[in-house]
């Protein structure tokens, strides 16, 4: 179990007051407190380490990242991550160029499929990175999504 202290003078915010355990990785299936540190990591690999236990991933073409080439509106980008990899216990979505790359993380039950859809905010053109924990190992795939400013002057 890795213990990291990336908390550089974190403000005691109104968020779930779990600052004490923020650096600890707890067993995933127990309702863990919200992983605050992971959601504050400005570096993608750091965020990955905190949320998935490691930043050591292998690219896999068995993970499909469905997202538009050009997002119609960066505030609502519909995405779907799906994988045919077996024994998926966790999936995470990172938006590389967002201020905090980690966007969301999903702990899956034993009969839950490696599939999740959601709608995300992208601040600018960026890679969308999906990381899947299959059989305890990490695999990843990414897709570049362009985010543009509208043309109507609005």
């Amino acid at each position: 179990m890795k213990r990291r202290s990336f908390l550089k003078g974190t403000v005691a915010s109104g968020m779930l007051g779990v600052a004490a355990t923020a650096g600890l990785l707890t067993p995933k299936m127990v309702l863990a407190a919200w992983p605050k540190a992971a959601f504050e990591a400005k570096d993608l690999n750091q965020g990955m380490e905190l949320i998935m236990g490691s930043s050591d991933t292998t690219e896999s073409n068995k993970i499909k990242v469905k997202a538009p080439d050009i997002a119609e509106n960066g505030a609502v980008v519909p995405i779907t991550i799906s994988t045919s990899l077996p024994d998926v216990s966790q999936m995470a979505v990172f938006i590389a160029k967002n201020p905090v790359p980690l966007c969301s993380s999903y702990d899956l039950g034993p009969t839950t499929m490696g599939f999740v859809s959601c709608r995300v905010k992208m601040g600018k053109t960026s890679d969308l990175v999906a990381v899947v924990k299959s059989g305890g190992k990490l695999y990843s795939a990414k897709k570049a999504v362009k985010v543009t400013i509208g043309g109507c002057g609005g």
Partner: protein
Amino acid sequence: MKKLLIMAAAVGVFSTTPLISQASPEDDLKAFQGYFLKRFPNVPLAEYANGVYALDEASREQWEAIEEFPPYEIAIEEGEELFNTPFKNGKTYASCFRNGGIGVKGDYPYYDSEKGRVETLESAINECRTKNGEKPLGYKKGKLASISAYMAYTTRGQKIDVKIPFDQRARDAYESGKRFFYARLGQLNLACAHCHVDYAGKRIRADLISPALGHPSHFPVYRSKWGGLGTLHRRFGGCNKQVRALPFKAQSPEYRNLEYFLTYMSNGIPWNGPGTRK
């Protein structure tokens, strides 16, 4: 017929006398729809109920992903609840509309000969409120938009069928809306037609422009940009601001007449509200 449009679009000066030809609204309709049907031969008329998504594959995919569970469903539910909640005097909205207010969005806009102006669904909703001793609601978003969304939803699938009665005033309202559509506005000096006719399906910077044909069919609309629902007149105002023109007020005569013209131009297209757009 195309000559009519070109002539109208070329009118750079906004004047009070009808410079635009003496063709009838029926002729205008044929020309307007004919232009789009010819330019996009693979898009049937009914598809224009889906706006720009009828013209572009990539953005259609994103829209379909959102339509899997569209955010306006929340507003429809809210609207239904508001619609069924009685006023302080015990009456409900149903008492103000034909058929209890179900499936009646197609009755609007229409030219009200008594009042001497175009009546829209939103104005009818507020009329119902004030008639029953309630305060009017804001016309652009919020509760009124939700009620409008519910009423639009119960009308889905019916064909747009605006009629212009044999009344010079109604005809004038229509012509006024038409003039507005083709008149240049704002610092950017653009007319609605420049973007939504000439540039429909093309990009202005990164925005894909929607065709004017079918515009009113999918309102009110949940726009990702607004993070919520808005009415047609809200969008008119936003669009005017975007060409750096001072917007008119929601439900002003200018916007009512514009709605009248635009909806008439969309006759035959199914009502498809509420919608989601970026």
